[in-house]
């Protein structure tokens, strides 16, 4: 993503966070949690596939060495 609309989005959200200290947290928590839970569900599915455990082990190894591995 790039360009002014993305930039405007950053400004709009940051302004909302700054001006609504009691409101932003719930939306933000939902966003963060959904992302983590969604990714872990994909890993769980992968684990059940043939060689899944082995693939996950390799992915852990890559992640350990700092390479992004979040399944798509």
């Amino acid at each position: 993503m790039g360009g002014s609309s993305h930039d405007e989005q950053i400004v709009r959200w940051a302004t909302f966070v700054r001006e609504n200290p009691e409101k932003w947290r719930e939306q933000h928590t939902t966003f963060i949690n959904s992302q983590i839970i969604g990714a872990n569900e994909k890993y769980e599915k992968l684990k059940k596939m043939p060689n899944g455990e082995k693939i996950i082990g390799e992915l852990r190894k890559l992640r350990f060495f700092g390479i992004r591995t979040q399944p798509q």
Partner: protein
Amino acid sequence: MDRKVSDVNILNKFTEDFCSVVNKYARYVVVSGFVAISHGRSRGTENVDIMIEGLSFVEFKKMDDVLVEAGFECLYPLKVEDIYKHLTGKLNVRYSWKGVELPNMEVKFAKDSLDDEQFETRGKIEFTGVDVFFPKIEESIAFKEEYLGSEKDLEDAKHLRLIYMDKLDEGYIEDYKEKIRRVKEWGGVLTMSRL
């Protein structure tokens, strides 16, 4: 351990749990993306970065044992001696909750005077609602703008600047950027007395 969608932010809980163990053994700061994310920045991440003071092997082993007891595991099955060797070799290691892929805690030892300085100026930030130590906000912005510099980092810095609009010490940021430039010139080995 509740990892369902709820009012508990998983990333915050993971970070607080990990830091509560580390805090018993060393000073630390949570750095990089989580600084912005805990200030409401809305972006994806798979890891939280923590920088801790260098520890002796004996102290590190104690900490690693307690991390394991607390439900964490090193992402890649290494002996504690090898994890320590990684860290002292200026490499990072990653931990997760046992059996859970994400999130990860990326751990590194402090490696230069700028890292050490962050332990002196660190503090907790009420706005975040996360009970962990962060670097001074001006230092985080300076690092993102001057040292890291990726699109994501610049956006994080922008977010933090908007959150702290009119409250930032711009002189401090500029001075800190100058320190970063000087440490970079000296290959990261500059001591505090030279700054």
